[in-house]
C-alpha cells in the first residue's frame, strides 16, 4: 500500500506513471492528468512556469496522502508534479490511484487533486504573448 510523490523537471510519462500501481487485489485504477491549456481567462497562454517551496510541498503531500488513505479504501497512490517550464499540452500534474472498488479510486483521485489545488505551496505563472502573471495573485 505505497504512496509516492515526486517533483519532476521532465515531462510526465503516463505509461511510467501507471506502471506497477495496480495489483490483482484492485478492481479500479483512476488516473488524473492536469494539463496546460492554451486559453486561460480569455487570454492565449504560451507556456506555464511552476515553482514550489519544496520541503513544505513534501510535508503537505505526506499529510494529504495520509488523509486520503484514511478516507478511502485504496491501494497504491502515485503523484507527480512538474516544476519549471510546462509547454501547452503537457501535463503539469499526474495522479494515479488503485483501489479494490471504483468509488474509492475515483474519489481519492479527486480528493488528492482538490487538496493540491487548495493548500500545496506550488505556484503557477501563466506566460502570455504580451506578459505574464502569477495565478491567484490578482496582480
Amino acid at each position, binding site marked *: 500500500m505505497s504512496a509516492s510523490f515526486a517533483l519532476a523537471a521532465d515531462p510526465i510519462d503516463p505509461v511510467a506513471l501507471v506502471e506497477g500501481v495496480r495489483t490483482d487485489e484492485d478492481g479500479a485504477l483512476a488516473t488524473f492528468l*492536469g494539463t496546460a491549456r492554451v486559453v486561460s481567462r480569455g487570454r492565449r497562454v504560451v507556456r506555464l512556469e*511552476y*515553482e*514550489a*517551496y519544496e*520541503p*513544505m510541498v513534501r*510535508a503537505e503531500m505526506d499529510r494529504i496522502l495520509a488523509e486520503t488513505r484514511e478516507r478511502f479504501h485504496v491501494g497504491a497512490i502515485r503523484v507527480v*508534479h512538474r516544476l519549471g517550464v510546462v509547454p501547452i499540452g503537457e501535463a*503539469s*500534474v499526474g495522479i494515479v490511484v488503485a483501489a479494490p472498488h471504483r468509488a474509492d479510486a475515483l474519489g481519492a483521485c479527486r480528493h488528492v*487533486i482538490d487538496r*493540491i*489545488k*487548495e*493548500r*500545496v*505551496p*506550488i*505556484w*503557477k*505563472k501563466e506566460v502570455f504573448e504580451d506578459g505574464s502573471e*502569477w*495565478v*491567484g*495573485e*490578482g*496582480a
Partner: protein
Amino acid sequence: MRVRIRLFAGWRDRLGEEEVLLEGLPPDATVESARARLEERCPALRGLPAAVAVNLVQVPPDRPLREGDEVAFLPPVSGG
C-alpha cells in the same frame, strides 16, 4: 534575533531575492513584525495576500519568532 525569510512567486519577483536574512529583530518579534520589516525594504509588498509558514507549518500572524526560524510568505497557491 535573526530569521531567514523565504520568498516565492510574486513576492520574490518584487523583492528580487528568494531568500533574505532579517537581523536585529527584537526578542518579541512576530511573523507580523517580520512582514513589516520586509515591507519597509520593499513597499510593493504592501497589501499583497500571503499565508505564512514557520519551519514548514502554517501559523497565524501573531506567532512569535525564535532565533533561526525559517519564515516563508506564501502567496495564494496555484499548483495542479
